[in-house]
């Protein structure tokens, strides 16, 4: 009699097949994900049922380098602008929102492959903040510090003065949550997401560009989307 402990080892084949698929997915997932974001992302964004939002496409992922998501209320928030400037600033959240408001609606592209299309950001142009502080003649770069205690970023002064670089405090019309880097973060529209430092605490004018957290770990300092980090994403 055939017992059910004999027969074809289909289970083992399926099991090993799944592990093989998983390994292929880890190695090629970056490319597949990029393709999915472009092909499916826009459809999911417009999906009226909202069920598409459950799919792992066209959505933000939340990263922190400290393993902890720093939380600071708008009331406790301070932003300093100092270094090579004529007038160092120490701003409260209210000071920030009292400045001229700017909006930018652009894609958010992560260097790890995912992309969120048409994200609506609001805040203050970094250019306006810098003008308020008045960079000294020998200032040629801007360094950013996060209150997570670990993350830093930097831009050339020229890059920092672009129209599409914000100190953002609203996302899609709502207060920027802690997950997204609130109360205020940097948004550098034309560059990969790692430039858009979260939990912004300090803006320091410096003589030279100092590589940021990820740049010390191999990412490109000039992080133009599609023209850096060996990637060929469409520009945002």
């Amino acid at each position, binding site marked *: 009699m*055939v017992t059910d402990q004999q027969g074809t080892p289909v289970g083992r084949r399926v099991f090993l097949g799944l592990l093989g698929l998983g390994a292929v997915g880890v190695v090629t997932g970056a490319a597949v994900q990029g393709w999915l974001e472009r092909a499916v992302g826009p459809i999911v964004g417009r999906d009226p049922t909202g069920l598409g939002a459950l799919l792992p496409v066209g959505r933000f992922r939340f990263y922190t380098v400290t393993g902890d998501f720093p939380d600071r209320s708008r009331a406790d928030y301070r932003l300093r602008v100092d270094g090579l400037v004529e007038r160092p600033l120490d701003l409260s959240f209210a000071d920030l929102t009292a400045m001229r408001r700017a909006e930018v609606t652009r894609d958010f592209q992560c260097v790890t492959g995912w992309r969120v299309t048409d994200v609506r950001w609001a805040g203050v142009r970094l250019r306006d903040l810098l003008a308020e502080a008045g960079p000294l003649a020998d200032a040629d770069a801007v360094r950013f510090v996060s209150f997570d205690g670990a993350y830093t970023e930097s831009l050339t002064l020229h890059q920092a003065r672009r129209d599409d670089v914000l100190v953002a405090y609203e996302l899609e019309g709502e207060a920027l949550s802690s997950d997204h880097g609130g109360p205020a973060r940097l948004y550098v529209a034309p560059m990969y997401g790692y430039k858009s430092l979260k939990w912004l605490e300090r803006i320091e004018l410096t003589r030279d560009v100092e590589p940021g957290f990820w740049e010390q770990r191999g990412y490109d300092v000039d992080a133009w989307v599609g023209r850096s980090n060996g990637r060929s994403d469409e520009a945002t």
Partner: protein
Amino acid sequence: MAVAPAATTLRPSDPPILRFDVVERVVHWATATLFVTLMLTGAALYAGPVSTLVGHRDVVRAIHVAAGLALPVPLIIGLIGRWGAALRHDLRRINRWIPDDRLWMRRRTRGAARLGKFNPGQKLNATFLGASIVLMVATGSIMNWFDAFPLSWRTGATFVHDWVALGVWLAVGGHVLFALRDPDALGSMLRGAISARWARTRRPRWYEDRTGMPAERLKTSR
């Protein structure tokens, strides 16, 4: 499997049959608890509305990572020792597909299939969830300790983790639905034994293996 000597003296319709021994039940419920913990904390990490509702992202993340690392432990402990004989036998049953499983897969021939202890759906479910443990622990580890791996692997690991998670929700959801529709089967995962009638009608090949009695008594008496 050896037929218990006492089996021939039993009246096949009466005494319940042990379906899952205590080791298998403990492994099942420990793994189930970890799976549910991971699915809920995973949802809180992944889905925006749930994230904002739950908050405490650092705590949720710590629970998710700890439960993830613990996920394979009950199964490994259950399998390695002398106590794991029943679990190892069932694993072999899940691995091996008999011709009747193929009959069962087609609706037209399903009635003719004389199944062993598990039906093909249960086999596929167990195989997928077993593979998902390996895949999720591996990709989760790459995501958590990304410094040690190439950059593109982190994206790839996230990609695999996301889609397997979707599969796990479907597989566990389906498993729970089927269990609720079959109280006898669900009860046997709590108490161990199942009625002889259930075994004889639903899993005749397993019934014969366990009792040494023919499952289709009515047919032979005719």
